[in-house]
């Protein structure tokens, strides 16, 4: 039915305004004791007026957020095939453990002897990460994947300066298929990016790479390579690439965003990697939370370990200690501090809980099922859609828009059509090296029945698009909102609520 309702709601889908439109500056949903009214010691440095912020009573607030939540798609609602994001099930035991007061109600600067269990927990997680990657060291403080990339590249930079080559080695090779954070990170760390072409088979073009390492390589700082790469493929020449970059005097940064495909089966330390961040919110199931918080611990080779950021943990007969001061003692070569305190503790507890739940045997199964599920999706859809590359994939199946040629429709129309089928779309238009890319990562936590249902839905949408179904151009029809005008949003940015202009005095 398309008729308007008086309330603006439609059945279970409730209309919900902004708190600024129905909350009042005088109401509050907390009961606090009355202040005693004692003399202020603020020295008169006070704000002119109380903040104009609406308050809601608890029932109103609960309703506000629950109503809004129902306008969101979520993993708990259905398959979330966002390629390169690894939207797997978030176990609730992890949430329970993270909320144990012994982890959630401790202060980062209380005396170290009062938080020995917390430091031991971080050390246990570090041990798992080092063992799973076969790397000798790990920096725990990076707060997200991109922060971990920064950590790895800053360590490379520090190592180059320690060699006396920091000013000269500025060139970092980055494949065209890389995630945008890679080139952005390299530049933020003071490097210059040189792009490497992709080969026909979706891997790095080895000829192009080697040609960039010919002749004078005294300006080469390293390479940033994602493996498995963003096309969902394993870089089969990875050892050769690692050797070539080392021979050129550079370091190998591996983007570990797709570690989920190989965890328990392949150890990056066996591939010649010098640094790799691990997204705990991908491989190790900490919740994505609508866009964070993440965590990006970064494993380091022996060559880079001395330059790791502070703080880090040391263990002796007196227990666990945080080494917090760069430039002294064990941290004399540290490149410094990346954030206040010690990293994303709340993500560490969840990730370790997940690892203990799976164990070495379960994590191997995780990787295998993730890869099996992706290959199953690829096999089921390859006759209708256009696989971007020949052969098996790893943890994600990549399609191009070749099958839409002459249909007049585009990748975006498939994505929006999938919304009406009750699914979150796959990642679209990424990686950039594939035209109209559709990147599907089902993850290991989907059953065969759910995969079948998803493939049926996507197949139907793909067939309709191929047949030129114009209606898809205006999809979605069944979501809380229709397609949004992103151009208007960017042209005239409205980034906060402002009170409506007073009505014109017409009377």
């Amino acid at each position, binding site marked *: 039915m398309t008729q308007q309702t008086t309330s603006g709601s439609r059945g279970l889908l409730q209309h919900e305004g902004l708190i600024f439109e129905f909350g009042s500056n005088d109401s509050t949903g907390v009961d606090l004791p009355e202040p005693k009214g004692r003399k202020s010691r603020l020295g008169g440095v006070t704000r002119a007026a109380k903040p104009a912020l609406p308050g809601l009573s608890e029932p109103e607030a609960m309703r506000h957020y629950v109503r809004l939540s129902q306008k969101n798609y979520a993993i708990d609602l259905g398959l979330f095939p966002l390629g390169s994001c690894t939207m797997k099930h978030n176990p609730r035991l992890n949430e329970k453990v993270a909320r*144990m007061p012994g982890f959630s109600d401790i202060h980062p600067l209380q005396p170290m002897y009062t938080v020995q269990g917390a430091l031991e927990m971080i050390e246990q997680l570090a041990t798992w990460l080092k063992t799973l990657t076969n790397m000798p060291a790990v920096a725990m403080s990076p707060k997200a994947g991109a922060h971990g990339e920064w950590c790895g590249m800053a360590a490379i930079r520090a190592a180059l300066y320690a060699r006396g080559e920091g000013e000269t080695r500025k060139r970092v090779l980055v494949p065209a298929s890389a995630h945008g954070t890679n080139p952005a990170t390299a530049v933020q760390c003071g490097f210059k990016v040189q792009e490497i072409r992709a080969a026909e088979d979706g891997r790095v073009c080895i000829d192009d790479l080697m040609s960039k390492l010919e002749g004078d390589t005294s300006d080469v700082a390293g390479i940033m390579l994602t493996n498995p790469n963003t096309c969902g493929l394993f870089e089969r020449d990875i050892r050769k690439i690692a050797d070539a970059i080392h021979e050129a005097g550079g370091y190998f940064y591996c983007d570990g965003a797709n570690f989920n495909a190989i965890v328990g089966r392949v150890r990056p330390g066996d591939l010649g990697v010098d640094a790799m961040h691990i997204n705990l919110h991908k491989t190790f199931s900490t919740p994505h939370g609508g866009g964070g918080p993440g965590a990006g611990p970064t494993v380091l080779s022996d060559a880079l370990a001395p330059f790791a950021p502070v703080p880090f943990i040391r263990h002796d007969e007196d227990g666990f200690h945080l080494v917090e001061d760069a430039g002294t003692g064990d941290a004399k070569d540290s490149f410094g501090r990346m954030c206040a305190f010690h990293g994303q503790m709340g993500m560490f507890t969840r990730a370790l809980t997940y690892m203990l739940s799976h164990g070495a045997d379960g994590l191997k199964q995780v990787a295998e099922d993730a890869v099996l599920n992706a290959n199953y999706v690829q096999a089921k859809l390859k006759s209708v859609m256009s696989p971007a590359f020949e052969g098996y994939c790893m943890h994600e199946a990549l399609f191009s828009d070749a099958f839409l040629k002459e249909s007049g429709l585009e990748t975006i129309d498939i994505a929006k059509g999938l919304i009406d089928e009750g699914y979150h779309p796959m990642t679209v238009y990424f990686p950039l090296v594939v035209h109209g890319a559709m990147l599907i990562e089902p993850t290991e936590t989907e059953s065969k029945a759910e995969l079948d249902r998803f493939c049926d839905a996507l197949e139907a949408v793909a067939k309709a698009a191929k047949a030129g179904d114009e209606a898809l151009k205006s999809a979605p029809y069944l979501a809380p909102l229709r397609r949004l005008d992103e151009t208007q949003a960017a042209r005239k940015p409205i980034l906060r609520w402002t009170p409506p202009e007073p009505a014109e005095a017409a009377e």
Partner: protein
Amino acid sequence: MRYLPLSAADRAAMLDVIGAQSVDEFYHDVPEAARLGGKIDGLPDHQGELAVERHMAALAGKNRTASEGPFFVGCGAYKHHVPASVDHIIQRSEFLTTYTPYQPEIAQGTLQTVFEFQSQVAELTGMEVANASMYDGSTAAAEAALMACRVTKRKKVIVSGGVHPHYAETISTACETQGIEVIVLPAAFDDEAALSTYAADDVACLMGQSPNVFGTVTDMTAIADAAHAHKALFVSVFTEVVSLGLVKTPGEMGADIAVGEGQSIGNPLGFGGPYVGLFACSQKLIRQMPGRVCGQTVDADGKRGFVLTLSTREQHIRRDKATSNICTNAGLCSLAFTAHMTLLGGTGLEQLAMLNHEAACDLADALEAVPGVTLKTDRFFNEFAFETPMEAGALLEALDTKGVVGGVRASRVYPGVAELENVVICAATECNTAEGIAAYAKALGEVLS
């Protein structure tokens, strides 16, 4: 395995459809030497919920929590009461298990809460606009320094001696790799004003903090004026967001960028993270702002809706020319912040701020009365520094034996600064009781006598 739905029969049937003999075939590109035969050595096998919970609970049990007794530790992270409903809201599956709102038609829940968050942060800081949040206060401060350099096309940043040392170090680390000079002024209990003398035509920004790391509240308007006289920016930093319920805001002081830690609202201490960085600035600077931003627009039927916007600043579009490499915000922590702030409202926040201030005043009165104690902070909100004749670490350990966690020794964040060896930084919030404050004073008196 309880998290893996595929059965052995499913796996066989799927391999059949694919036309593969075993999953090993999918790994054929892995160099032979790097293929592991069995599972990785040295790690235990899978365990049930009960066993895992026991393991983690044992580790948790070795830590002393902030609720176990009188607890006065602040210095950038604060113990506050969070309403029970906040944790319930952020555990809604639809918020917890969703991702960055790339598909706005099915992410209006997240997007509207982000828009409300941005509006609250802007109002709270007295600034024109705010972004969707940063990792934490310290990384927000580092991004502010980098942004000031982009805006002014200058490469020098001045940081006051009152800015939290972890923030100052984070700023220095981030700037160093881009060839930006960072001058951090010597530690000072009450000298944000020293920043003004560093204003110059080659300076990108002056960065001051109020309340500063020693708790001192400062009207930094003159610093902002000094910066502006040289076309430099003024960045106002805070680590205790509750203070903004009472103290002069960054906007009122003329800040161009305001950054700080939002943990106190909605988020537990959690041993330092995850927290939520707040980032606000003036409207004219928005195209140089780092991080995610949500904006209002309309859908095809003309209905109001929200989308992520101004993405041409961001790494996924601009790649090596992006304003920042940031790819996430502090999603769920910012949701906790906005939900708690919605429960408080302006009225509740102001009242909460007053309670914090009064608790700190009571604590200051009680400690000042102890012979040998000198207060080092004249104007404060909920945190101050004091000095005694005893080395601060030894003093805190002695207090601990009497059941009081008395604060942070200043030397932990300012190692090697001789004048600070005997200084303790302590905070009081609405969680501290009159009995706890009395216990602190009594214990301190006994230790120093």
